């Protein structure tokens, strides 16, 4: 997919507004996982606004999006509202009334394809969906966002073996590497690198990008979209809490808990810049 630099820049700018609106909402909801949402935001923004993902309710036509790192599922909501899949009233009432929206995604939320929250399931489910689609000659993409934390789950590697063996190239894997677990950095505890080599050893084609550089994100997404025969993974180096001064690269940005009004003001100020 060819997108001009001008359009990429517009998408980045549009994303800033969406992100600010989203965090205004989060300041109402006062729960969730801001650090993880901010690490994956730019990629999700590019996916939706760049037209990489076909959004809608008909799963025979539209793509599947599995936010396997389910604690970041809320990043999808603004885009699903824009597309009319999630009712605007649910978005408006979230945090102040009755709404279908939750911090973790679940199948009761329109446009959320898979219930998530426990880690390590997304790739296996994606493999099942892609396999069934192949049986039925349904040609849609299955996007899966996983976190590096999910690489600690054995089921992730079981699924990688399986989808690689079956050459499920309709599965587009996006790996968010923000190098922050709740209790520290992977390299200080149970190291994960070299992730690229591990993926290639599993017979995936891999590219590694800066997950906040839009030119690189678009190049990476184009890489995913042009898979032929072998599944591809885009490994994105990201920054947890990206864009909020006191959150960036901080493990404590994982949770909303502890964010008082002063901090919420800083969040909105920083994201408005």
């Amino acid at each position, binding site marked *: 997919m060819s997108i001009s630099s001008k359009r990429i820049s517009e998408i980045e700018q549009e994303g800033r507004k969406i992100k600010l609106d989203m965090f205004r909402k989060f300041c109402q909801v006062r729960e969730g996982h801001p650090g993880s949402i901010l690490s994956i935001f730019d990629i999700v923004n590019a996916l939706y606004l760049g037209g990489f993902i076909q959004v809608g309710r008909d799963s025979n036509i539209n793509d599947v999006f599995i936010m396997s790192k389910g604690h970041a599922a809320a990043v999808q909501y603004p885009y699903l509202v824009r597309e009319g899949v999630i009712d605007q009233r649910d978005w408006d009432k979230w945090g102040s009334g009755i709404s279908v929206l939750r911090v973790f995604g679940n199948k009761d939320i329109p446009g959320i394809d898979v219930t998530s929250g426990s880690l390590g399931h997304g790739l296996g*489910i994606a493999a099942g969906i*892609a396999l069934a689609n192949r049986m039925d000659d349904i040609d849609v993409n299955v996007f899966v966002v996983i976190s590096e934390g999910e690489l600690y789950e054995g089921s992730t590697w079981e699924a990688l073996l399986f989808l690689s063996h079956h050459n499920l190239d309709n599965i587009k894997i996006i790996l968010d590497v923000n190098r922050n677990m709740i209790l520290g950095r992977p390299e200080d505890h149970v190291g994960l690198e070299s992730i690229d080599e591990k993926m290639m050893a599993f017979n995936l084609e891999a590219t590694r990008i800066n997950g906040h550089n839009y030119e690189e994100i678009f190049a990476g997404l184009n890489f995913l979209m042009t898979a032929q025969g072998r599944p591809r993974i885009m490994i994105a180096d990201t920054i947890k809490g990206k864009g909020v001064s006191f959150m960036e690269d901080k493990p404590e940005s994982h949770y909303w808990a502890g964010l008082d009004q002063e901090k919420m003001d800083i969040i909105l100020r920083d994201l408005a810049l």
Partner: protein
Amino acid sequence: MNYQRDSFISELRVQAANNQDIVFLSADFGAPALDQFISDLPDQFFHLGISEQNMVDVAIGMAMRGKRVFSYAMAPFVLMRCAEQHKLAAMMNLPITTIVAGVGFSYANAGPTHYATEDLSIAMNLIGSTVYTMSDASLAGACASYLSVSPEFCFVRLDRMPGDDLFSENVIDITSGYRSFFSGKTLAIISHGYLLKKAHSIVMNNSQYQSQIKVFDLFRCKPVSEEFLREIAEFERVLILDEQITYSSLGIYLYPQILRGRDSSKVKSLSLADNYMFQNVGRDGLLSEAGLCDEVIEKEIESLISL
């Protein structure tokens, strides 16, 4: 002597030949009937490797796309190792049948890693699950036929060893969730699986028992049918048998439903103690050491009848 697994899979093969949405997943667990399934319907079979967790996740994905998924592996691994995956399937209310092979002390020669003497509790405690336990091959075949057209989120617990059919000449009504043998009215024996056959055999070999006892094969213990509860309500004395540890046994689940209005001293449950058994003495030897041999069961029967 017939194998439950072969009966189940053979019937499923017949159904799957006419319905391409039926798919069979195995985590490297086989059966002669599965060889035939694979040979006849290779596009509807997927070997997942020895990765039970991924098998359940893949089953979730396929079921989301409308496939009627049957996944198959050895009992302790496909239930205990994958509890969270099953929970996810339960949350999404997906019609996946998990075939749980080799329950109880089926793998007596292998030791406790292969025993499934606590698996019932996992299947029972998954919200929205339906739980079947087969006591013979004809029942297993009937169950496969039923589930292939009426898919549900369920677990079908199979015995490893072959055996004779109890009632093969009769049509089995899967929807009722139970069947009964003999027509006594003094004592109801409720069981499923291997111990159901043991109870059946004990009664069959004693003409006096046959006029006193009715044996209930509760092959669907969740949910228990109202019809079954109504029939059990007619009995003052009840004996429940299960090849599970007490905390995972039929007795634990049935007590709240059948004790109401009943003299609790006339309801007994025999199950396994809360420990691992490493003795290499065969299945009946293990049951004997666990206090579930024929003699103990008969003693309990006598005790209840004499009350």
